């Protein structure tokens, strides 16, 4: 499907707005995970604002597409997107990580638009697989998307699920790998290398689509390609930059799980104008 320059521009602007919300939320909360939220912002913005079939006023609508954020620590991104879609009042974002808030430190059922909790890494692809099997059984006519972190796929359960999803020919399932190259302790390649990551997924029977995870057009085309693929699940392997959009956070592992100070938050918002 061809996408107009105007549509691309609009999504870029939307992603910038989401990034601003992420920075504001985490700064205000005083803790959280900016690095991975910012690296997958373009991917999930494109998904929710260009591809996703859903009804924010009816979050449990049975025909909705499913999204599961397996790398749950990046939920500020998800919350910002849900709020922008009207799932809840945008002011809720300022209660992130507070006691009694509908926006927990890791996603759970308190949040309208979140089906199921995540946070313990490696479990999400299995959940998405279960959703995929249910869709096939019910001819539900919806698609299932699952966001994985690159550090996360060091978990063995991910590969159990990968094996099963191709065994059961889950072509309604599209995984998205946010390959930003960093995990908490440092560079992926130094902590526990993943390469050759494309070959690994292919060997497990998946259709792989490698893209630049900050190129809106490439992202949209990848989702389209995944949807067309029959007989096997697809994974979009997106090369991204951790902390994307804020110069002093980009590729700085410290910002995996540290909130910006008030001063840093201000500077970041200047950059994201």
């Amino acid at each position, binding site marked *: 499907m061809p996408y107009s320059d105007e549509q691309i521009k609009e999504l870029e602007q939307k992603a910038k707005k989401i990034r601003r919300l992420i920075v504001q939320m985490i700064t205000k909360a005083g803790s959280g995970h900016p690095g991975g939220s910012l690296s997958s912002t373009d991917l999930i913005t494109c998904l929710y604002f260009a591809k996703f079939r859903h009804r924010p006023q009816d979050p449990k609508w*049975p025909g909705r597409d499913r999204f599961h954020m397996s790398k749950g620590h990046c939920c500020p991104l998800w919350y910002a997107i849900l709020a922008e879609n009207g799932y809840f009042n945008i002011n809720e974002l300022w209660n992130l990580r507070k006691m009694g808030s509908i926006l927990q430190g890791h996603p*759970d*059922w308190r949040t309208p638009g979140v*089906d*199921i*909790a*995540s*946070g*313990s890494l*490696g*479990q*999400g*692809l*299995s*959940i*998405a*697989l*279960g*959703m*995929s*099997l*249910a*869709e096939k*059984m*019910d001819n*539900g006519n919806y698609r299932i998307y699952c966001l994985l972190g690159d550090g996360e796929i060091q978990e*063995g*359960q991910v590969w*159990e*699920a990968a*094996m*099963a999803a191709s*065994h*059961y020919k889950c072509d309604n399932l599209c995984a998205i790998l946010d390959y930003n190259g960093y995990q908490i302790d440092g560079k992926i390649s130094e902590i526990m290398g993943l390469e050759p990551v494309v070959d690994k997924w292919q060997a497990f029977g998946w259709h792989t689509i490698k893209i630049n995870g900050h190129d809106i057009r490439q992202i949209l085309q990848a989702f389209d390609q995944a949807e067309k693929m029959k007989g096997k699940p697809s994974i979009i392997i997106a090369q991204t930059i951790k902390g994307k959009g804020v110069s002093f956070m980009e590729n700085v592992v410290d910002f995996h799980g540290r909130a910006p100070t008030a001063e840093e938050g201000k500077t970041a918002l200047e950059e994201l104008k």
Partner: protein
Amino acid sequence: MSKMMMARDVYGETLLELGCEDRNIVVLDADLSGSTRTAKFSKVFPERFFNMGVAEQNLIGTAGGLAICGKTVFVSTFAIFASGRAWDQVRNTIVYNKLNVKIVATHAGLTVGPDGASHQAIEDMALMRVLPDMVVMVPCDGPQTKDIIRAAAAYTGPVYIRMGRPKVPTIEGKPGFQMGKAEILREGKDISIIACGTMVKKSLDAAGFLAGENKQAQVINMHTIKPIDKQAIINCAGKTKKIVVCEEHMITGGLASAVSEVLSEFAPVLMERIGVRNKFGQSGNPDNLLKKYNLTTEDIVKACHKLL
């Protein structure tokens, strides 16, 4: 001689009945469908059965995904894998989200026998009982297995059901099953024996022996470990002042712990515990293992003597 049945045989048959009655029931197994008896369901309803291979973490996670899409999911594997290998998945995917998943674990306890310690789950009740709002049930015989499986299907939310490998004798004259309600199988004023699973029949035998000594033991089948029937325990304490708890499980974390938690808070009385004491199991035939680990009728009698 009472009828002997394998709980898992009854499970397989009941699952098939439920599958006929309710199209919403989906069954998952992890390469043990022959042993857990889910194979019976799989042959009749292949489109509603998924064998996930030797991958228990994914087994539980996939069950969660199906449940969130509205399915009633029965998941089976051996107790050691369901409760141990996949504990984090049970906690974070199933129980935290209050999903409608029934984990039916077979081959629990020492009576797995020759397979040895690696396969003898004697910690599973502890691991499952600690999870908020998890329902934990243990049938004492074949017919009760059917009651429990049906009760689990009718209940909305996560359930763990524990059953053993070998045949167990049917206990006649039980009252009608009710989840969370202890069954008084025999009345007595001198001592209470509270048991679950395979130890219920042995407790009745012990009470029979004690009757010959003019001691009246009452026997309680505590088929629901969680939520535990507090009132039944308090009543036992009030009536007999002495309690023996019997389980084919570690004496820590399981039924004995659940009972002692209630007693220490509401009605402290002396109690004895029959169970595995801070040890792993080993290979052997089930009866010899039960002797070796002091889980026999004689051991229950001895424990009662200690208190009487």
